[in-house]
């Protein structure tokens, strides 16, 4: 469990990072928090010839909250965001997701952007980012582009980034008035990747119905999975017990989840419906809080 030989680069400017990516492309990997990359290097699942350590790039080590939303740069650690009262107030679901990521020691090092670029569908952040309609600010030496979260996750451990691109930051638009969210997952141990998980977001209308509902599941497919049919079923309803039972049934019947060493497809099929229902039930509970 020692990595293969690599050349180590420690740039201090974003431009240097982009130059290195431009030059080495496929042969390079970005090292941010290292919480997924280092084990993969040690297992020799990855053997990049060049490692670009961005920890000295000060410009990437920040996050900012404005009226329009939250921008999280490449080096911001899970723990930075988790401990921010402003972030917790503005995005309770993000805070909840962050507290479910691994353990404190890992959250101290791990980065939001690193986790998203790693694109593990069983992780917390990809599904939450999709539920919040986040945007990925992707940059290379030659171009900048914005990728909606819904188009960013391509396959298991595969994102939309090409080999010259850096996920420079992510942007999460501010939540609308009376928007609520909930994150629920089932893990073997505290801090594990999800066997199944669900991030649900919706907005309570003045009529007392839930609108613009987004339901995104983690751990059930090669990418976070948005359940459009379920969203349609619940949107415009009051999330009554009957609706919750119906959506659980729908998810259980329609889902064709993956099987792996952690659990069976049948388990995922059954329990995804449960976590979706529980997440939506918590949106229902929050109805009184948002003064509808």
């Amino acid at each position, binding site marked *: 469990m020692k990595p293969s030989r690599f050349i180590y680069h420690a740039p201090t400017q974003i431009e240097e990072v982009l130059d290195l990516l431009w030059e080495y492309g496929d042969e390079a990997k970005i090292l941010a928090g290292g919480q997924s990359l280092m*084990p993969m290097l040690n297992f020799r699942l990855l053997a990049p010839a060049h490692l670009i350590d961005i920890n000295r790039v000060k410009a990437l080590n920040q996050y900012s909250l404005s009226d329009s939303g939250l921008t999280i740069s490449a080096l911001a650690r899970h723990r930075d965001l988790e401990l921010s009262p402003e972030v917790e107030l503005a995005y309770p679901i993000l805070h909840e997701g962050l507290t479910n990521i691994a353990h404190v020691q890992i959250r101290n090092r791990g980065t939001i952007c690193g986790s998203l670029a790693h694109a593990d569908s069983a992780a917390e952040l990809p599904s939450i980012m999709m539920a919040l309609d986040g945007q990925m600010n992707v940059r290379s030496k030659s171009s900048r582009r914005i990728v909606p979260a819904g188009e960013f996750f391509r396959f298991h451990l595969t994102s939309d980034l090409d080999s010259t691109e850096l996920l420079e930051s992510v942007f999460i638009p501010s939540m609308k008035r009376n928007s609520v969210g909930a994150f629920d997952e089932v893990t073997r141990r*505290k*801090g594990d990747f999800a066997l199944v998980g669900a991030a649900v977001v919706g907005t309570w209308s003045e009529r007392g119905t839930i609108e613009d509902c987004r339901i995104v599941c983690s751990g059930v497919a090669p990418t976070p999975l948005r359940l459009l049919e379920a969203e349609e079923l619940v949107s415009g309803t009051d999330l009554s017990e009957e609706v919750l039972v119906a959506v659980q049934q729908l998810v259980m019947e329609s889902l064709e989840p993956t099987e792996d060493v952690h659990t069976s497809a049948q*388990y995922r099929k059954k*329990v995804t419906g449960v976590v979706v229902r529980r997440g939506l039930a918590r949106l229902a509970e929050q109805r009184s809080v948002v003064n509808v």
Partner: protein
Amino acid sequence: MTQLSEVRDLEKTANLGTGMLRREDQRLLTGGGQFLDDLPFGDFYEAAILRSNYAHARILSIDTEAAKSLNGVIAVFTASELGPILKDLPPKVTNPKLNYQVRLPIVKEYARYIGEPVAVVVAENRYIAEDALELIEVEYEPLESVGSTAQALKEGAPPVHIGSETNVAVHLIQQAGDPEAALKSSPHVLRETLHVARGGGHSIEARAVAARFDGPTQQLIVWDNTQAPHYVRQMLATIYGVSEDEIRLIAPADIGGGFGPKAQFYGEEVLIPWIAMELNHPVKWIEDRWENFISATMERTQTHHVEVGFDDDGRLLVLKDVFEHDQGAYCVGLKVPTITMSTLPGPYVIPNIHSELISCYTNIVPTSSLRGAGRPQAVVAMERMMDRIAEHLGLEPAEVRRRNLIQPDQFPYAVGLTFRDGSPLTYDSGNYPALLDGVLERIDLAEFRAEQIEARKSGKFLGLGLAMFVEGTGIGPYEGARVRLTNTGRVMVSLAASPQGQGYETVYAQVAADAIGCDIDLVSVRHGDTSFIPYGQGTFASRITSTAGPAVWQASTQVKVDIIDVAASMLKIDSGELVIRGDRVEVGDDPEKGVSLAEIASIANVGRHGMSVARNQPVAIERTSYFKPSQAAYSSGISAIIVSVDVETGKIEILRSILGHDCGTVLNPLLVEGQVLGGHAHGIGNAIYEEAKYSKDGQPLTVSYLDYALPTAMEVPTPELFHVVSPSPLNPLGVKGSGEGGTVPLPASVANAVEDALRPFGARIREIPLTPDRVLAAIYGFQRDET
């Protein structure tokens, strides 16, 4: 020989019976532990091992040229360069009926599990060594393989050992009474098939070996983080064909846990020292976590087909258990399954017993003992059936147990079977009703049942599970200790056994100080080096307190007599008038008059050159004692678990865990508590989390902590502990083992609790660990693809 005294009344001792903090804690808690990889070896070469990536294959050729030519590589060894040491690594415990198959240190022709050593690279450092592994080209001819006992025992299954007609390693039967007749005549008979999965030891430092041939003394020095230094030295001396004095085996003071896998003997332990001699340069090999997952021995896989016959009152008439045990690719030892065979009856009076073992070879890394060593599975078989009897008769599980317990006045109690140490299974001591009462004092059954019924109304499913056990500990053949008075007037205790966190440096100072009567701060304890004491067995099977403990006690009481006799001669006074206080020997009623231990050492050990010594005055105050127990000493215990099961997700929450434990006299309550707590954590892991999974053809699927769910502090509840003390009559300290008792009952008690919680669903728990998947499958009856 000095008459042995006994310690039974700890009230009268200065140190024994008190919960002294471990002397080891300071260094371990401040990052100062000296694990093998921390030792300042200097310019040792580092080895890495190429391991088979086929579960079963014939090796046609190995090309090491590219690896050898890599810059920084010193040498590459395969079986063809290691002819002189291609010798059998024999099983630690065997049986004449064993279908014996040779295990070599490195693959010669057939690789039989993924992880088996194929080649060794020695390089300037481990990075280069691992680079070189990728350059070795091995041509394999893949062969059919089996990845479970079920596969291995199927009609027409491919053989793990080509040429062997069967994959059965050994088939053994033990009986008491007439079980077949009893099954026929029993008013009630219940049957079940129960499966327990594989798991590992997971010591914090994985295995490690370093070796250097010392030219000036012509001695091979081997550092090995083993649980059994003398055993490894003996094996190496045999394989290398040298005398035991030509090898010095050192287990570092801290080895980061053993748990059983480090009490076995492995090919790597033969390869590394030999290669160091071949290269005439020191070499070290530090096993990494991935290697540990695929090449260190594991335990637990058993499938029990159990039947119990009982009367209308729930009294046991007969127990019949036929179980399959996974031996792995080779037989490292038969200790585990034979322990299972004799652990089955537990604390109950059972007039008729049939215990039958079918152990088989599979294409998986071999199994050996792992904290609990065959007992958790036996307890699952017995205790799950005790709950089924209660369910069948509509009785409280605690009541069914109470009706069947061996009573305190029945000791010594002959079960009618034979234990793994070769002696008849005769329980020496215990108070099983007190264990059960201890739980019932802490859980009001009527109150719990009312709460359970009430909770179901709001969709909350609570369950209570009990499990009791009797555990053979303190086995032979012997263990040794050397106690001597040093030139500075201190007492040095040298142990053959090396610890893995049990606190030997603390507890054996307590034993020696109390036996001698001196200040405990004058006593030092060292261990793990074969140069300290010539013979020993090692730390395993919860045996050291009841073997090395009495040895330290015996040697120390002899040293005390010597010290006093020398003082008597020096002071010209009758030895009966003298007492040892602090660092002096004094006249009892005239403390001014006395001599220091340092002065005694000067007279007795250094002596006066060439001068004769008075006839009654001892010289060279140093005593070595070996204690050999006549048979195993039987610890016992009970676990009670209260769970809440989420019937929608299959997640189990442990609301209460109570552990009652009887290890006889408690020499240091803090250390015993630590042992039981550690064992309990391991038991929680076995019950709910840990499972080494393999594909049907033997591919390991869980080779990192991402996939193998070792519980963390977050998963392990703090148990409520209580002790019952029934001293063993088999040793002068009255002690019995405590290292494994915390683990043994947990898989059974948790499974009982979960099944109790799920009784409204009629769910049947047949497989352990209780993963969310299995719990839901038990509730909703969906099929799982079990190998």
